[in-house]
């Protein structure tokens, strides 16, 4: 479960002064649910997700992830989170197996369990062919599968995806979307950020539209359509964000 309460993050910039990258954001994600965080580039999606993954510390508000407070129990939060982003890369000089085992060990798993889980995940993701090859020789698809395996090795209750399909070809992006859906089916709490409207429509149970660090609107796809009188997600997004920009 994820619970964000008035989550705020400010940065100081020499030229622009104080920047509120996440501004008073509150939302709730239950197990077995995918929460889509939809926003343009620079809207505050990555900052919000990094706050939840405890990579950043909030300057205001609070959040609990899997029952642990992000500010007070960051290590426990991370032990229950699988974080996958376009910016989380693989160690090129390690093999896929070594990469997965490294994160298993960092999560405190014994060797025998790591071996067993690696085999299971490799079966599921069809990774056996390249499991013992170095990551720097991988195709994008192989890299994504290895990254997914890395996030799954400790079987986290919460999955955080930050634009995981960014820059991927159609087939690899589809595989990622399928994997996210499977996470929900397994009862995991999922939060998924993107700026691709179609992904949100296909995938998310609840959608939060973020703009300028603020959560502008929230609801199910059907609820948002009803509220804003539009069927197309892009039109809904433009209506919400455009109204804010017009102010």
């Amino acid at each position: 479960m994820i619970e964000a309460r008035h989550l705020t993050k400010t940065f100081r910039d020499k030229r622009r002064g104080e920047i509120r990258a996440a501004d008073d954001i509150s939302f709730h994600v239950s197990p077995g649910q995918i929460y889509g965080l939809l926003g343009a580039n620079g809207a505050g999606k990555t900052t919000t997700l990094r706050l939840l993954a405890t990579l950043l510390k909030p300057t205001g508000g609070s959040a609990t992830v899997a029952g642990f407070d992000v500010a007070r129990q960051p290590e426990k939060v991370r032990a229950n989170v699988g974080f996958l982003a376009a910016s989380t890369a693989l160690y090129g000089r390690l093999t896929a197996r070594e990469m997965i085992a490294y994160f298993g060990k960092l999560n405190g798993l014994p060797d025998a369990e790591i071996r067993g889980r690696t085999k299971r995940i490799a079966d599921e993701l069809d990774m056996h062919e390249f499991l013992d090859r170095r990551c720097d020789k991988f195709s994008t698809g192989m890299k994504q599968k290895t990254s997914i395996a890395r996030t799954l090795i400790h079987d986290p209750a919460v999955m955080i995806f930050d634009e995981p399909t960014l820059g991927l070809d159609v087939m690899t992006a589809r595989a990622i979307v399928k994997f996210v859906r499977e996470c929900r089916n397994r009862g995991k709490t999922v939060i998924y950020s993107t700026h691709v409207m179609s992904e949100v429509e296909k995938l998310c149970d609840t959608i939060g539209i973020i703009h300028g660090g603020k959560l502008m609107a929230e609801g199910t796809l059907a609820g948002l359509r009803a509220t804003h009188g539009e069927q197309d997600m892009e039109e809904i997004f433009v209506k919400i964000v455009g109204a804010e920009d017009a102010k």
Partner: protein
Amino acid sequence: MNWTNILTVYLKELKDSLRDRRTLISMVVIPTIAMPGLFALVAFISFKVASEVAATAPTIMVIGGDDSPRVRGALIAHPTVKVLPIAGAWKQQIADKQLRAAVELPAGLDAALERGESPGITVYNYDGEMRSGRAVQEVRAFFSAYAETIVVARLGERGLTPAAIKPLVVKTENVAPPEKVGGNVIGGFIPYFFLILAFTGAMYTAMDLTAGEKERGTMETLLCSPVGRGDIVVGKFLMILTASLGTVACSLVSMGVTLTVGGALLVQKIGAAGTAAATRSADRFSAMMTLDPLGLIGVLGMLLPMVVLFSAALFAISLLAKNYKEAQTYVSPLIIVILMPAMIGMLPGVELNWRLALVPVLNVSLASKELVSGVWHWDLLALIFGSSCVYAAVALWLAVKMFNREDVIFRA
């Protein structure tokens, strides 16, 4: 602090680094092959040039002296110089290194000597030029010997022996053991080399494990794990320390082999001539190559906190950079910061005292110079070791602080 996590991070970094060709080059190839190879080459070339200079009689010209056939004849017949006939502008020839020296004999030299006078002879040379220097040395040796025979003859005419003008004979004899002599001669270079190798050994790995990881995007991946930031810092720091110590160890072994095998060969070659001068040179060179093993262990002990300081400081500085290139810009000028105090430590006359014992790098450089000569100032050594440990701890603390700063880790 969780040592299991630290070990996990360390072992992964070790495996990763050992698979990196650039790390292997900086840690193994440069200290074991390139550096000793370079030293051996320089020693070989220097020896070859010196042997060549010693084997060839320098060319000189004799100006004047046509009315003094005795002196002129003896000089021309002297086997260690080759007298050329006067031709062209001899001063220009010396400057152009075509001629090594010219000897100007005054008019009526033989006659003046017979009268018991003390006429002056001028030797023209090229200051600082090796072969010209040797020509001057040979000419001086010839005239000293020639003057000696005249003195003996003059004293004989007066019924005196040479002892009349040389009542005392002063001779010097070395009583310091060879390792102390060696320590004094090359002791200054030992810490200089090790400090530079320790620094360069840590440099590449520090940049790769910090700015390199940020650039490749693996830093964020690592931070997603539940391992504490402090554990990650210590694990990475231990790898940088390993790289630095590995470089020093590799260079220590290769230098030891180079000095033992190469030095013995060189001593054998120098002494091969069998002359007294050659034996003296061989003995001197042999003494230079002898170092106090206990002193060397002392040097390594003093270097240890310095290596920790380098590793932690390089970690903290490289972490500031957002990519490898930027890290190189920050770190490369630091070599000068290390070189300068290490070089000051090599200067003759700069002695270790309480104030200098607190200056990082210089203190270890000066202490090492004394240690390899067998001088142990325990109080100053304790101060140097202690202060170096404090500096190293501060640098490590700074590295942990930096690693916890979001603006440093997520700097884009």
